[in-house]
């Protein structure tokens, strides 16, 4: 194997392949940064282009697009609080407050470095321990997916900084919206009001663009001024974190990368879930001085390392079993098959030179991402000094065309706008939109896992506790719930003591 890896490196260092990786990376970053365009879309649209190019170069380019696409979302997420991809939704929680505090450069720097680590750790896992990790993924059945979704939903509790009750309310409201459409088992249309466009449920991307981009845009225009609250260039701040800051962040980054890799292996669980769970864990294990939700660097490090950790992780089941780990991997499956590579054991033996070249290209993509990201951060961050009155119409235009382009549907654009109004009003009334987005993703996974388990077990509850993995996930969910609830009870006690 080491022989093949070495050969792969030497092939990839050829100028044409390096150029392909760089071009893919830059395209990926641009597409990822624009709200409405996702990494999946970018890869999907470039796969046909690779038909006429040789396998190694085309896969290297697609690898670059993938890594760049997931990373690019963080740029608009941090600067504008409008995530370019769903994977970056959690990055806005601490990333944008950092930008508002004048630390946009640092936030971007941390996002770049964390994404780099996430990508490299997952690429290492892909290279060395794929077969071992995939055995773990095979043990996941419907009840395990249900509990994974529940674990993801417990992050809602952590996200509700102001009021636990309101956070839960947002989440449950989101779950209700997620039931719109045909149900996963019997395909009965629920709450569709006869509208054909709602049969497959509320389309996720327009809803997310509306809830984050449009509602944020309305907030910005209401405030006026600029995002960084000053037109002073100095307010961008330094980009590279100091050695001490970096050491402080390293545990969070490594944990996030690991979590992203593992969650990426599970088919159906992707970067968005990974980033929220990683954020939750970082907040739970954080210290008292941490200011999560107000611009805590660990918040950005946790989410970005996790979502890029999914890149390599999602390729593990793809290359070993032919089962894609997420939607991008599914599209890459098409890319592989166009080149005549059928996933399975042959991929690492007969076509080993191509496969290892692809894996090694991920390392190179991440290095390019680090360089391009750090170099460009200073310029990207300037956006926070532009007046909101100019930014808002631009973001609105991008949101509109972004929502339209997913399904070529004007209904999606109206839906996006509707969710934007909903998000704005809810924010004004003191509710956060993140729980709704989480619920929209996790609701269907939870319901499918739950009903499928019930069908499999014939109505018995035992199936939910039969697998040790389920028990671990339940334990993790409970552990995640304890600190916020304890804090809530403590606060209430303190207040009633002061009153008397």
């Amino acid at each position: 194997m080491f022989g093949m890896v070495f050969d792969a490196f030497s092939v990839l260092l050829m100028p044409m392949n390096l150029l392909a990786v760089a071009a893919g990376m830059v395209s990926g970053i641009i597409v990822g940064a624009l709200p409405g365009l996702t990494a999946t879309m970018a890869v999907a649209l470039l796969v046909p282009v690779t038909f006429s190019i040789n396998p190694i170069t085309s896969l290297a380019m697609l690898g670059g697009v993938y890594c760049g696409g997931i990373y690019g979302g963080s740029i608009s997420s941090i600067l504008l609080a409008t995530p370019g991809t769903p994977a970056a939704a959690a990055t806005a929680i601490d990333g944008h407050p950092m930008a508002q505090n004048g630390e946009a450069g640092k936030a971007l720097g941390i996002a770049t470095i964390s994404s780099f680590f996430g990508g490299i750790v997952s690429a290492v896992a892909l290279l060395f321990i794929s077969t071992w990790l995939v055995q773990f993924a095979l043990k996941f059945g419907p009840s395990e997916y249900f509990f994974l979704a529940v674990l993801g939903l417990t992050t809602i509790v952590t996200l509700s900084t102001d009021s636990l009750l309101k956070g839960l309310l947002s989440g449950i409201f989101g779950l209700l919206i997620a039931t719109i459409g045909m149900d996963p088992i019997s395909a009965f249309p629920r709450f569709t009001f006869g509208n054909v466009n709602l049969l497959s449920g509320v389309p996720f991307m327009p809803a997310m663009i509306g809830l984050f981009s449009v509602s944020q845009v309305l907030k910005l225009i209401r405030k006026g001024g600029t995002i960084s609250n000053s037109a002073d260039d100095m307010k961008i701040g330094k980009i590279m974190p100091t050695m001490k800051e970096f050491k402080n962040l390293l545990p969070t980054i490594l944990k996030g990368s690991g979590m992203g890799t593992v969650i990426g292996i599970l088919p159906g669980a992707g970067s968005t879930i990974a980033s929220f769970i990683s954020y939750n864990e970082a907040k739970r294990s954080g210290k008292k001085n941490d200011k999560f939700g107000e611009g805590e660097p660990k918040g950005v490090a946790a989410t970005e390392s996790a979502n890029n950790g999914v890149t390599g992780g999602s390729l593990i089941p793809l290359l070993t079993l032919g089962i894609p780990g997420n939607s991008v991997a599914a599209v890459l499956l098409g890319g592989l098959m166009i080149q005549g590579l059928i996933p399975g054991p042959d991929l690492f033996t007969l076509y080993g030179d191509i496969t290892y070249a692809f894996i090694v290209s991920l390392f190179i993509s991440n290095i390019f991402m680090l360089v391009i990201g750090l170099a460009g951060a200073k310029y990207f961050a300037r956006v926070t000094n532009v007046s909101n009155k100019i930014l808002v119409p631009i973001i609105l235009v991008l949101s509109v065309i972004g929502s339209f382009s997913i399904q070529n549907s004007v209904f999606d654009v109206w839906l996006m706008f509707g969710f934007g109004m909903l998000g704005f009003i809810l924010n004004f009334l003191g509710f956060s939109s993140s729980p709704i987005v989480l619920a929209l993703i996790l609701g269907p996974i939870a319901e499918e896992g739950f009903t499928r388990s019930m069908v499999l077990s014939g109505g018995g509850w035992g199936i939910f506790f039969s697998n040790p993995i389920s028990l671990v996930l339940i334990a993790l969910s409970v552990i995640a719930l304890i600190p916020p609830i304890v804090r809530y009870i403590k606060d209430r006690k303190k207040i009633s003591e002061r009153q008397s």
Partner: protein
Amino acid sequence: MEMWKRDRIVSIFMICLSALAYYGSRSFSDMAKIFPTYIIYVLAALSIMLLIKTFNKNNYKHIEKEVDEETGEVKEVVEKADVVTIDKEGKKRVLITIIATVFYIYIMNYLGFFVTTYLFMFILFNLLKIDNLMVKLFVPLFTSAFVFLIFRVFLTVPTPRGIFF
């Protein structure tokens, strides 16, 4: 508007929503009914809890750390919850933006994406009182060009068509 007023609005809205959803779900098939029914119950329960909370003013205080200006001590003080003030200028800007966007999405299908986009941005810049003429003329142009390059040329994704471009 005080927090308790806002909470009351939301809790009443959510209770009504649960009732409507429950009524709607009665026609679902057995399999389809399971999950939504649990969700509706929990939604109703949480909304009622929130409504009850709004009747007790003590619930709207929380601990804030305040630094005493003279001694520099950090004290913990019981504060009342935030009040959001509705700023008139801001409210006008939001309303203008919303109405402009509705027109934009509607007209996009008649006049074509790029023409409507240019008009939308130009008009909105004027309504939002941007003075710089160069910005008003060229930013919409650059934005349209950018969208054209990325979406139509690079990704070959269609844009809404109308009479014009």
